[in-house]
């Protein structure tokens, strides 16, 4: 990839990334935290002048995000942010391109673009604000709402199954998959930082509280009393331990995960599954992603997987260079006069 961005001393602060627009989310909305963590992290991870950052979004509450960032921004149409962002990146590979999207935006109307961006490994950072509801259209269920969810369009409870976003991204072979929570600022910052450093499609699912239409959807994961027993923080190279007193662990028995008690003396830390972010085998990542759907298992947050492969943009520009080398720089006159030409005198 052509990486000829002029290197200049860049010292940004969070403030440099705040635009002059008034932020208009509902008071108490989880989106505020996400915005703050992005603005806090950017001075650390932005390795190029600020004018080379672009935020692209679709439609939804979360998709107002670009207005609040003092970078280049594009508020698109519903579901199409990954495609618009792809065009931006391919037009100018020196840009750092970020997508802000909601669960409805990215997985419902935009599902097709999302999986294809992952498949092609386009160098985009996709932040999906998951509140398991449609916020902007005032409270209909979304493709991540749990089965049986009562909303305005499902007064008797929804009958469809939700998407499992990390699993979907994995199925599309995304090269970076992570999850975090709006109410876990330090963790969220770390995920944003890591996504920013990744080359290729980086997908972060961020649990986000919509206090108006789906308040408390993640309270088990965010409230003091319950969170330790329900959240598993994945740390590379570390055994999977959780619980208030670090008393529970995950053991992998063949391909079957088990929650084990570390207090009975039967199992110790050494018996536990040690997390490997860089595991190229998707099977274990899939097991992790399925925890959410297995009763008694904690919800993993952190980096599920990170692998390295050529990005689409790298491939595209590599090929252009190769063809130029082989055929020589394009010559319009030559192309116009190619083929079966004849003279009329």
């Amino acid at each position, binding site marked *: 990839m052509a990486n000829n961005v002029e290197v200049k001393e860049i010292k940004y602060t969070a403030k440099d990334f705040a635009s002059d*627009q008034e932020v208009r989310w509902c008071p108490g909305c989880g989106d505020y935290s996400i915005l703050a963590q992005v603005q806090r992290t950017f001075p650390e991870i932005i390795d190029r002048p600020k004018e080379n950052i672009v935020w692209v979004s679709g439609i939804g509450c979360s998709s107002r995000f670009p207005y609040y960032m003092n970078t280049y*921004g594009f508020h698109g*149409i519903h579901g199409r942010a990954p495609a618009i962002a792809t*065009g*931006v990146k391919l037009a100018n590979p020196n840009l750092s391109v970020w997508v802000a999207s909601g669960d409805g935006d990215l997985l419902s109307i935009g599902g097709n673009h999302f999986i294809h961006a992952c498949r092609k490994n386009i160098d985009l950072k996709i932040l999906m604000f998951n509140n398991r509801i449609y916020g902007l259209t005032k409270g209909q269920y979304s493709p991540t709402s749990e089965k049986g969810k009562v909303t305005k369009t499902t007064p008797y409870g929804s009958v469809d199954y939700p998407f499992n976003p990390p699993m979907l991204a994995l199925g599309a072979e995304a090269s970076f998959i992570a999850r975090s929570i709006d109410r876990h600022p330090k963790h969220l910052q770390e995920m944003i930082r890591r996504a920013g450093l990744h080359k290729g499609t980086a997908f972060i699912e961020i649990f986000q509280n919509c206090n108006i239409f789906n308040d408390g959807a993640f309270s088990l994961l965010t409230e003091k009393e319950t969170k330790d027993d329900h959240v598993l923080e994945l740390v590379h190279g570390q055994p999977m331990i959780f619980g208030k007193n670090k008393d529970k662990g995950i053991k992998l028995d063949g391909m079957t995960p088990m929650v084990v008690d570390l207090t009975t003396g039967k199992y110790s830390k050494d018996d536990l599954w040690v997390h490997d972010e860089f595991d190229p085998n998707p099977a274990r990542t899939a097991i992790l992603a399925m925890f959410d759907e297995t009763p008694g298992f904690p919800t993993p947050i952190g980096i599920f997987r990170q692998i390295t492969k050529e990005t689409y943009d790298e491939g595209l520009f590599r090929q*252009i260079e190769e063809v130029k080398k082989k055929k*020589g720089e394009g010559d319009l006159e030559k192309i116009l006069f190619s083929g079966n030409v004849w003279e009329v005198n």
Partner: protein
Amino acid sequence: METDKEKELLQLKEVTIRFAGDSGDGMQLTGTQFSETTAWVGNDLNTLPDYPAEIRAPAGTIYGVSGFQLHFSSEDIHTPGDQPDVLVAMNPAALKKNLPELKKGGMIIVNSDSFDIKNLNLAHYESNPLEDGSLDGYQVYQVPISSLTANALEGVKLSPKEVSRAKNFFALGLMYWLFNRPIDNTVKWIHEKFAKNPEYIEGNERALRAGYNYGEMTELFTARYTVEPAKLPKGTYRSISGNEATALGFLAASVKSGLPLFLGSYPITPASEIIQYLSTYKNFGVKTFQAEDEIAGITTAIGASFAGNLAITSTSGPGLALKTEAIGLAVMTELPLIIIDVQRGGPSTGLPTKTEQADLLQAVCGRNGEAPVVVVAAATPSDCFNMAIEASRIAIKYMTPVILLTDGYIANGSEPWKIPHANELPDIPVKFRTEKEGFYPYLRDENLARPWAIPGTPELEHRIGGLEKSDIYGNVSYDPDNHHKMVTLRAKKIKNIENDIPLLEVEGEQSGELLVVGWGGTYGAIKEAVNKARAQGYKVSQAHFRYINPFPKNTEQVLRSFNKILIPEINLGQLARLIKSEFLIDVQQFNVVRGLPLRVADIVDQIIKTLGGNNGK
């Protein structure tokens, strides 16, 4: 050679030939090769490939018939010809399907080997037309093409199936002899095409030569025909199809604007060739993105335009329908973008391989809200090149989406093209905004265009999107008066482009009784019809739209200079509707929606009818 002298060489002014056979018979290839050679010997020509939507329909069936018609002449011509003079029918189905179109008394050359019971049944013939007298009145030549090809290829290491496939080259060779064209072009082509496969080279070349020699040796034909080169303007020529010209036009626009070309597209007949051609220009830095669907095709292009590329998206009718919402976004964000619609038969999936002109209203009006875009339409295959450059020029200068309409007929059809030199093509000026002083994203220049400030430009960070923008500042705005103002400004910007496009030209008398008005790919048929009517003494003129939104500035004045207006279209009156509503002028319509180009003779009849037979006096 002795035999040659015995056969008379008859001079013709023009000929229309239709090659027809099973979809597996290689008729498109035969037609293309005949066209290439015919162009090369200097005739003017025009072609109409006509193939089924099925890739390989069951052999021998009527719906599996593939045809290629070409019209060539020693004079200037504009259509693929209404009715063929010569029909080459490789099997009974091809004969059955095409006979009704053949001119009375026309020439039929059949592969007599294929007229067996099985094929006759498949074509629903009750008796053999070669024997039952039903072809009386035509000049029928029965040539056992299959067995002659097999004889000629004896000893070549090819399977029986491959031998049988070479029969199209035999037919081509025979037609080259009959119409006095050289075979060298095709021989060269065979050698290039099958460079890796010496058996194919030998087989096909032998078949071609055998066909040619058969013409010379057989007693069947008593005459050969020749069509003298046309008097085309001096220059270097090539034969070009509309899709190829479109691709080249955008390549030229990219070079002339200095902007990298980005195409986001999803394959659809008959537009796919555009992305295929552009994909081969990688060494120009052209970026072709085969998207997951047409919405991604256009939205990637919008992203690329935002980031400073010359961005285009190509499609056909159903794809244009899918792109609708995104076109609105491009209108709102005021970014340059070109949407190419190679129209085909509709509605819905319609007639995917056939031509039509029925997306005009979709192009002009088909969006939510007040969303004006520029609409231009190419008139002939080679005009696609000019209009691609024009569309790019307008999109960039006015920061607006432009829809370029072509259609299946001109996209696939070809004609000789006098090639312009790269340095004769005008530069397309581009000004990216770089100065910070006084920058606002929706400040407008003298053309009402907003600044193109691309990501990567220091200190011009700004945000755009589909929500209504405040005038000048570009912040999201729900202010009622601002919305009215912006709606009006966007409309005015497009309307003003009328000052920057050529006036509507009238071919023929500048005023009078009847003006025949068309747009897009019907140019040739209308022109030929008007010429024919004039030759018969009728006073009739022609005007043709290549710019439709906005219309050329003098449109109303031109239309009002004639007592009657006739608008032939391959739809149910879409241009007619626009003209009537825009200018409150009464028009007469002529609409035939058969998935085929309009027939010259039908338009001539219509002209005469409209004039009430009084020669326009």
